[in-house]
Every structure is written in structure tokens, then in C-alpha cells.
């Protein structure tokens, strides 16, 4: 029994009335994304993302296995997004057939795996017999809405941060060098998809929404848990910095005008750019922290002093 979270009538009325008057409970504007905090652990590919109270942890790992028979030149890549009751009692352990959980898993899958964000051909070691299997384990620690957005950032930041052990191939023989012997190598990332979720509210009655042309529906970005519980419709747009739409999912819900949906995509692009830059920035900072002496060793430094 997954306990459903319930929200009281007075609280839901308060929240909706506030939205009608252009206010959100946490004081954000309608199109403001929560501040994303990205923290890396000691190991490569260990990332914690915090967005407001939402907290997601992602751990990337890899091992050598046999590739699929029908795809001998490709490595394996798997994303696991299993929920546990830690994120809230509404999630049941080991049961991931809940509608929302299926949608989360599918959207992450489409955004990251199907869009080819990770170069899986680069994971091939010996065609047909050996390849890398990369695994991303996403753990939801605290739920305050925006799981899709947060886990997508977590997986991408994790993949960018991860290093796999260096290998040497002699014919069929593969030697894996421990991390302390040889500098590990990063994964091939082809693009960085970022998910942005929009929530729709209908301030008027259903008929006005379907027949009318006022288009007065309220659109907010990055809803919190309470807003998620009360919303009438949801749209998740996944974009990358190359102005490509990677995935769009508006699985039913409140019918929305096509032009306002386009407007959402455009807004999402600005956020995508911002978050991608942020990921690059924290990655650079982490790299510096890990390798304090890199500056001393580079030839650039030598030239500066002379």
C-alpha cells in the first residue's frame, strides 16, 4: 500500500488562489527555476543534486562485460531509477509500476539513453566479446517535486564527472590499469540534455479551457511537491545547448494552446543554457580541487613566469 499524500481542501484552495494572484508559496516567480546545487563526492561519478528541498543522488559505475550479440560494436548503458520510501511514504519499496514512477523512468530513459547522450560505441573494447557496461544508479533522497529535472541533471553531471579505468588491449587480452597507476579516462559525452518541467493550472472551468480562447491557463516552471499534487497538466521538455529538442512529453492533462507550448520550449532553452553552464563550471572547479598541482606542471605556467 503506497500511502497517497493528501492535501487539505483549505490548503489547496489557498495555493490555487495565490497562483491566480501571481504568487507562489515559496516566493518564486512563475518562470523561475530553483537554484541547483551540485556536489561531487570523493569517487568519480558520485553526484548529489539539491533543488530546494528535493535531493537526488546519482552514482555512476562501470565494469567489463560481453556486448549484446546483435550489437557487437556497442557498450551497455543502463539507468536505474528506483524509488524507496526514503523520498516519502507514497513510494513503495521494490514496486515501480506506479504511473508516475513509470513516467519518470521513461522520460529519463528517452532524454539520456535514447538520445545518445553517452557515446556507447566508445565503450566497445573488443568487438563482440568485451565492452564496458556503464550503470547510473539514481537514488531519490528527498522529494519536493521536480524529480525528473533533478535526476536528469544528476545523471548528466555524473556521466561528465565519471572516469573509467584505463585499459590496454593486446589482441583478445585486456589489461585494466588501477586508478592509482594510470590516469583514468572520461566517458564520451555527445551532448548534455536538460529536462525542464512545466505545470499547468486551470483557473477557470473546464469548458472555458476547451472551448474558449482566452488561454488564461497558468503555467509554472519547476513545481514543488504541493504544486505537483494539484496541477492539471504537465509538460516536460528536454533540450540541449545545440537548440535541439531531445524529448517532449505532455502525456495528456490540461489541453494547452500550441503557441503557449512553443513559448514553454523557448523558455526551457534559456534554462537549459544556464544549467549546462553551471554543470561545466562546477566540473571545472572539482577538477581543479582534485588536481592541485596540474597548474604547476603545465607548460602554460612556465611561459607565464618567464
Amino acid at each position, binding site marked *: 500500500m503506497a500511502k497517497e499524500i493528501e492535501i487539505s481542501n483549505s490548503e489547496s484552495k489557498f495555493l490555487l488562489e495565490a497562483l491566480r494572484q501571481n504568487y507562489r508559496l515559496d516566493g518564486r516567480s512563475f518562470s523561475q527555476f530553483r537554484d541547483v546545487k551540485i556536489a561531487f563526492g570523493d569517487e568519480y561519478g558520485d553526484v548529489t543534486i539539491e533543488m530546494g528541498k528535493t535531493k537526488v543522488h546519482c552514482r555512476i559505475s562501470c565494469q567489463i562485460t560481453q556486448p549484446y550479440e546483435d550489437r557487437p560494436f556497442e557498450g551497455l548503458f543502463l539507468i536505474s531509477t528506483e524509488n524507496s520510501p526514503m523520498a516519502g511514504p507514497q513510494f513503495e519499496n521494490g514496486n515501480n509500476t506506479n504511473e508516475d514512477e513509470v513516467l519518470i523512468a521513461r522520460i529519463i530513459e528517452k532524454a539520456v539513453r535514447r538520445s545518445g547522450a553517452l557515446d556507447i560505441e566508445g565503450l566497445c573494447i573488443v568487438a563482440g566479446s568485451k565492452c564496458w557496461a556503464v550503470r547510473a544508479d539514481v537514488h531519490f533522497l528527498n522529494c519536493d517535486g521536480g524529480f525528473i529535472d533533478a535526476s536528469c541533471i544528476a545523471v548528466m553531471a555524473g556521466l561528465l564527472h565519471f572516469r573509467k579505468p584505463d585499459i590496454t588491449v593486446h589482441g583478445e587480452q585486456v589489461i585494466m590499469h588501477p586508478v592509482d597507476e594510470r590516469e583514468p579516462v572520461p566517458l564520451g559525452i555527445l551532448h548534455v540534455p536538460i529536462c525542464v518541467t512545466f505545470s499547468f493550472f486551470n483557473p477557470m472551468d473546464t469548458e472555458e479551457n476547451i472551448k474558449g480562447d482566452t488561454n488564461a491557463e497558468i503555467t509554472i516552471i519547476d513545481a514543488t511537491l504541493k504544486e505537483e499534487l494539484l496541477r492539471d497538466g504537465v509538460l516536460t521538455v528536454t533540450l540541449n545547448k545545440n537548440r535541439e*529538442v*531531445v524529448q517532449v512529453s505532455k502525456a*495528456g492533462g490540461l489541453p494547452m494552446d500550441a503557441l503557449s507550448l512553443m513559448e514553454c520550449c523557448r523558455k526551457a532553452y534559456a534554462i537549459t543554457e544556464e544549467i549546462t553552464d553551471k554543470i561545466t563550471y562546477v566540473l571545472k572547479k572539482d577538477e581543479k580541487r582534485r588536481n592541485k598541482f596540474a597548474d604547476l606542471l603545465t607548460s602554460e605556467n612556465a611561459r607565464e613566469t618567464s
Partner: protein
Amino acid sequence: MSRLEIYSPEGLRLDGRRWNELRRFESSINTHPHASDGSSYLEQGNNKIITLVKGPKEPTSRSQVDTNKALLRISVNITQFSKFERSKSSHRNERRVLEMQTALVRTFEKNVMLNLYPRTLIDIEIHVLQQDGGIMGSLLNGITLALIDAGIAMYDYISGISVGLYDTTPLLDVNSLEETAMSSVTLGVVGKSEKLSLLLVEDKIPLDRMETVLAIGIAGAHRIRDLMDEELRSHAEKRVANASSR
């Protein structure tokens, strides 16, 4: 493998259509009057879909009772023989199918006047006999027809269609060959409006092309709505004629 010419320089597609032409669209309703309260059979190109609506009826278990509105349940059965090569597994509990069902339920939840049928269950069963691309759109059309046949109150038609994007040319109503060769967008449009109830993009599309693709899609969906409307009206006329002749 020889490369197929998806869109020839003369402006013809694999099956001889122009970029803005729909596939053959044939539908009939009340095809299974004894098995269900409303039913439809739809052929959209080579997609062949049977939709059965059962209800509003008494919910099978106590936990399904909602005192405010009807419960909508949709199950999609993609038959193992629906593609050229027989699939080894039944698709029942695949995540992809679960996702489709959820999307369909959430689309029709907002369009069917569920509040008129409290404490009941509306069960929709879909059997995909053959699939040839743009299946999600066809499912929407099939459900709309079957719901109307069942006499369940709705705000408007929902018509579904997929549009592909070949380089810079949008191609309306893609078949499976086109679908595998390029990225496509699936839309669910409400009636004659420009409102989208469903919008799914599963592959990369340039952001700046989205608008044209959507525009073509909406136009195509409106055309499908008219085709469905025509079929429904002719069916109704036949029935009225039958009833009055008795």
C-alpha cells in the same frame, strides 16, 4: 542495405504521398455491439485497431469507487502478430505500453465528462491488430470514436496524428518506414481548436522547426476530425433510417 529514398526530389514519399497528405483513413463504429457498449474499428494506413468501450459500469472492486467521478481505465493489447516479424513477447507489461496507457488515460480524463458518471468504471480495451507507424495517434482516434459510439459525454473530439521531420520538410502522418528513419512528433488535438492535449517527441528535432511541425500536425488532425465526423454522421443517418422504417 539499400538506402531508401524517404522523400524524393520530386516531392514524393515512399508510398507515393506528398508531404502534406494523410494515409487512407477508414473507420466504422458499433462494430462489436454484443461485446461492448461502444466500439470502433479503425484503419489508418496499415494501422488496424479495434477499440471496445465497456461502461459506465459497476466497478469490479470497492477500491475503484470514486464518489465524485467515473474511473477511466485503458488497456492496450499490442498483438504479437501486429508487425511484419512476430514478436517473441506479449507486450503487456512493457514500460513503453504502460506509458502509452497512462498517457491515454490522462488525455481522456480531461476530455470525458467523468463527473457525470460518479461511482462507475469506464473500461477501454484496445487491440492493435496491425501497426505501421504513428500508433499513438491512431489509438487516440479509435478511442474517440468508440467513446462516441458508447454515448459517453465528451467536450470535443480528440484526433491524433504524427508528423515527421525529414531534414527541413515536415511529413504528415508517417508510416513505420518513415518513423524509423527520422524523428517524429505525436499530437493529440482537441476538436477544431489549436489546443494540444497530448504532445510527444521522442527523438531530436531542432527547436526552431518545432513550430512548423506543430502547425502541419494541427492541420492534419483537423482533417482527421472531419473524417471521423463524416463517418459518425453517416452511421447515425443509417441508424435513424433503420429505426424509422420499422
